[in-house]
């Protein structure tokens, strides 16, 4: 500043502005993630790349972006850089309504505490709300979370309020009202959910599909516990449309009926006696049915997943079924779930695709799940740990594995929202 007075005014001003301009162009990038291995399924990138973020958007993805052009640089050498994960089956309609299962209740969870630490930036609630309480869901969850929250709307007007009672009430399943509400809330409603129906008839499934048709969105089915069971084959080949989703794909449910015969509530995709995938499941995949994990507390069995994976039947989408019953059990978080499939032999690039670009397509949100220039900067940085790890399924069976994915850094809309080891911070002096 003293120079300003010592010399000619104009010259100094020019110099000053020149410096200022240089300074701006030199640091036009807000955040540079440097040296990581980028996996971006949409853009077919699976190699070492730098990712630059500016104004909350992906600014550039290229082989060597100079650190001098960035205000902040994160060294991601040895780490994997992916789009923020998309979890299409969470239960995040948290609230305090007593005895209300997963609708405005304590069994559902506030998303932010479970998403970012696992690299997730988008979560879809799987049917907590129906058309009667979707507005409350928006107000209490969508608007108040840093995580991007989307929703499958329950075909039951009152939402997922109780398996044995409300969710069996066909009188509260109105395809037209549900579709109308879905359309009205299309900024965050991305599908219709039908779950837990135990009657021996197809009406609720067909209602959900009808609503999905009107609103132009997919249906997710948590196939109920009808006794005698409804044929899974009919669901997949006759009732659902291509693009509709079977969740809890690797669930194994069994119970002895009164005569002592073993009954599979929800017919499994793998025949437990022959360990072979049932032929119609392959047909369903060809038809375009989406197979989603939906791990949850009770919906993932090694006895299903391992033979299916060995026979090459990989999930289309990895998802959590996050709620109080799964958060501390075998599921834990999306990074843990992704690790399970790595350990079962699914290539890392496929695991990431099944958690990013695949789900984005399934929920018809092509603007999500990739790192294209100009898209919103939702990014996850993972470390692939090597060691001796263990993974449990829903029944407490464990397998060992040598790999584990850990979320180091999560960026939502250009901002660091999780930084496990303070990668984006300077060291103390």
């Amino acid at each position: 500043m003293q120079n300003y007075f010592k010399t000619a005014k104009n010259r100094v001003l020019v110099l000053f502005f020149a410096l200022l301009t240089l300074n701006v162009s030199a640091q036009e990038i807000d955040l540079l993630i440097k040296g990581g291995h980028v996996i971006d399924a949409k853009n077919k990138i699976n190699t070492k790349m730098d990712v630059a973020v500016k104004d909350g958007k992906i600014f550039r993805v290229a082989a060597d972006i100079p650190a001098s052009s960035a205000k902040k640089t994160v060294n991601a050498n040895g780490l994997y850089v992916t789009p923020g994960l998309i979890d299409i089956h969470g239960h995040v309609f948290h609230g305090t309504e007593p005895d209300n299962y997963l609708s405005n209740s304590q069994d559902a969870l506030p998303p932010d505490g479970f998403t970012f630490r696992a690299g997730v930036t988008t979560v879809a609630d799987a049917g907590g709300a129906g058309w009667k309480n979707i507005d409350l869901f928006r107000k209490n969850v969508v608007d108040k979370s840093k995580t991007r929250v989307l929703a499958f709307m329950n075909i039951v007007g009152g939402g997922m309020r109780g398996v044995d009672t409300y969710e069996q009430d066909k009188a509260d399943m109105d395809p037209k009202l549900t579709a109308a509400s879905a359309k009205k809330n299309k900024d965050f409603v991305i599908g219709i959910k039908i779950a837990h129906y135990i009657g021996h008839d197809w009406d609720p499934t067909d209602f959900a599909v009808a609503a999905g048709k009107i609103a132009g969105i997919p249906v997710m089915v948590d196939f109920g516990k009808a006794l005698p069971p409804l044929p899974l084959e009919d669901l997949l080949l006759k009732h659902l449309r291509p693009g509709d989703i079977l969740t809890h794909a690797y669930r194994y449910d069994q119970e002895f009926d009164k005569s002592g015969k073993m009954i599979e509530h929800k017919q499994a995709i793998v025949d437990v006696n022959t360990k072979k995938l049932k032929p119609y499941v392959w047909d369903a995949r060809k038809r375009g049915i989406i197979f989603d994990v939906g791990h949850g507390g009770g919906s993932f069995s090694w006895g299903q997943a391992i033979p299916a994976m060995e026979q090459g039947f990989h999930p289309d989408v990895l998802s959590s079924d996050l709620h109080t019953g799964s958060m501390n059990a075998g599921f834990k978080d999306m990074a843990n779930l992704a690790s399970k499939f790595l350990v079962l032999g699914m290539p890392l690039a496929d695991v990431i695709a099944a958690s990013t670009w695949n789900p984005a397509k399934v929920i018809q949100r092509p603007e999500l799940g990739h790192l294209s220039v100009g898209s919103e900067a939702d990014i996850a940085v993972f470390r692939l740990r090597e060691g001796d790890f263990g993974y449990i399924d829903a029944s407490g069976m464990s397998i060992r594995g040598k790999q584990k994915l850990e979320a180091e850094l999560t960026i939502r809309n250009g901002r660091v929202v999780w930084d496990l080891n303070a990668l984006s911070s300077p060291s103390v002096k």
Partner: protein
Amino acid sequence: MGFERLEFSISQINMNGNCFIQTGRTLVIGICLFISTQYVAAQEIDLLLKGGHVIDPKNKISAKMDIAIHKGIIQKIASNISEKGAKKVVDVSGMLVSPGLIDIHTHVFTGPNAGFGHGSSSVKPDDFTFRAGITTVVDAGTSGYKTFPLFKEQIIDRSRTRVLAYLNVFAPGMVGTAAEQEDMQALKIEEADQTIKKYSDNIVGVKIGHYSGKDWKPFDAAAALAHANGRPLFVECHITEFSLEDQLNHMKSGDIITHAYENVSERMPVVDENGMVRPFVLDARKKGILFDVGHGGVGFWFNQAVPSVQQGLEPDTFGTDMHHNSVNAGMKDMLNLMSKYLNMGMQTEDVIRRATWGAANVIKRPDLGNLSEGSVADIAVIQVLQGNFGFLDAAGFKLKGDKKFQAELTIRAGKIVWDLNGMAGVPWSKDLK
């Protein structure tokens, strides 16, 4: 005890075999009793943790020991317990086995409001405790006497974590507007006193915090209320008009000041401009004032914590101040906070002590934070990871470290509530469905 078990076993055998009818009664009863004794002996331990390095500061144990758990309590702790009588054995060799951690500063009164009290800034305890080895939390005055019953009904009674509380001296706790939260009319000491007595199992102290008035009445009333009930005063932040020195002078031995290592404008930091812990702060420690970390979002600064550890102002407790922001920021969880101190040079046993038996004493709950035989089986099995780690403070600075605690297995009242790597799982094999 033995008699009950015997009866149970006989009825089991009678259900399974018709020996009474087939042969002479006396002989059969004799055989049944013999078998049942064997049966009982074979089922005595529900869960046996084998081969871990046990740190139990109360009992001055830091050694390789086995722990047997039965009916939710610690049945036996010894150097080599036979696997014979155990229903389940978990090999925890190479791990630390500690009493379940006690987090004395949390905000867990969740609900639909904005903010902390019955609000979305609080977090539900079970979501963040077990994964960090915590089995007991203390809520830091998020409820007052008017809101405590709701807090108890919705959170304390519905959580698997043991939830204790400091009662806010102001009636609404942290529910409502700032003005409502420190309304002098809401200073109902008698009602608060009745609440403490009514819920004496849950309420372990009285909190003053978030008070911007100049009148010492609430502060002193909170202290008097706490002391009259044999409990500590818990002094939180945002008490803008009183100097740190005056606050410490109004406290007594056994009272707790939290956010001890914060460096914000509204309260004088404990370390001065020259990097020295202020003498009056060290005097307060000598007097018996307790210093809690209360990390939270802005409550922990390396430029306070590091000199404090070096100059004898280590924290007495590792309160996390867990809330919706801190769980994703520099704090993350209690083990991450404890790992910071491990990497600042504090010994492992010392860190564990302050997180367990030390914390139990601070809240005057000597039934907790130890592994004495007969006590409730709240246990944390912790792995000390070796590697390159980074730890963040509120100023955005990183401390590099080579050690980090990780919760492998958490047991609450004898039940496994967290099992990171499936240590207690049944190994899967292809023959299983």
